[in-house]
């Protein structure tokens, strides 16, 4: 029985009552409590080896990890690395081209309805994880006067962790990266439309 949820898909994780992986929930809560006013939160990297150690600890037993001693930058980086290293990303690989093409729509309302359509098709754990992240990032952005992380910056730093193409070897252009970021910006700016 994979009771401890050591797998590397979102569904394999130990989940909270809201169907969000415990590791995601705990990292976010830590940043909510200690990091909303930290300059460069989610942009500043943690020390790589310590981030890896924390991630390993979470993977062994997410519930018993104590975050008290950890600086915000390391916890924030751990969350981003956990998401990036999943076998399948929060925005599922198989739907990556669909999302990117939806982002190409110039008309906002059409973009939003396309996103909504794809969000409805997301597996529940993926959707709930994304919801938790977007609502959290929005809260972080509200403190951008202090933390210097407005929505655009947060989207640039977070999009790479949430989106993965199916073909890793493909040389992605800057243009595709901008589309990824645009999706996150759209979700953040219209959070009430998607996550009411």
């Amino acid at each position: 029985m994979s009771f401890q949820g050591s797998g590397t898909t979102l569904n394999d994780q130990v989940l909270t009552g809201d169907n969000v992986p415990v590791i995601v929930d705990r990292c976010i809560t830590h940043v909510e409590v200690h990091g909303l006013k930290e300059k460069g939160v989610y942009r500043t990297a943690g020390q790589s080896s310590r981030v890896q150690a924390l991630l390993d600890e979470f993977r062994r037993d997410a519930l018993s990890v104590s975050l008290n001693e950890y600086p915000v930058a390391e916890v924030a980086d751990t969350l981003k690395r956990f998401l990036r290293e999943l076998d399948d990303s929060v925005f599922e690989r198989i739907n990556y081209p669909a999302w990117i093409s939806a982002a190409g729509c110039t008309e906002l309302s059409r973009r939003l309805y396309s996103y909504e359509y794809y969000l409805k098709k997301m597996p529940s754990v993926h959707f709930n994880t994304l919801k938790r992240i977007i609502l959290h990032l929005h809260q972080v952005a509200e403190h951008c006067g202090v933390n210097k992380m407005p929505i655009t910056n947060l989207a640039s730093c977070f999009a790479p962790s949430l989106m993965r193409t199916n073909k890793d070897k493909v040389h992605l252009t800057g243009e595709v990266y901008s589309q990824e970021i645009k999706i996150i910006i759209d979700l953040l700016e219209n959070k009430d439309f998607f996550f009411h």
Partner: protein
Amino acid sequence: MQGEEALPKPQRIFKVVFVGDSGVGKSSFLHQFCNHEFRGNFAATIGVDFQVKTLETKTSVVTLQLWDTAGQERYRSMTKTYFRKADGVIVMYDINLEASFTNVRNWMTSVQEQVEPGTVTMLVGNKLDTAEEAGTKAVKTKNGQELAKSYEMLFYEVSAKTGANVDDAMEDLTRLLQEKEDKKMEEVLQLTEITTKKGCCGR
């Protein structure tokens, strides 16, 4: 040869790639070097961006292609393709942020995997102004020097904000890039001579 003085100085082109953790000040450093101003806009770089700066030295005109990369880890796969054919690599950290210095080793691993041997590398500690204001340096100058030495890198502590040491660092790098290229050219010339001679002897 006649009219040697009238000849235009030879044009040199060098590709230099900037890497380092997110937020250490790569773009600000580049902006200070190219435009002599500090742009405190905090916008994170996406993917890769580049700028060109021309310098005139005693012997030649040097065009530096400066490739600014995003520090976010996922963009590293993209960064790697830009290491190819790089003549120089600058690895940057924030003097006030221990983790960004510790992570230099990881960046160097990526760099060493990708670049050709003989590529000029420089370690740059940025945000010297903040460190001096605070009166403490999280990363001591000595530690920077030692790390640079172990990788045979040039080393500078700079401030992209005030411009301190920015030009000095880049001039030193440019000088070394030229020296390396001169040496390479000489070697090629010597090789050609040897092969020509062998050809003459009919061996």
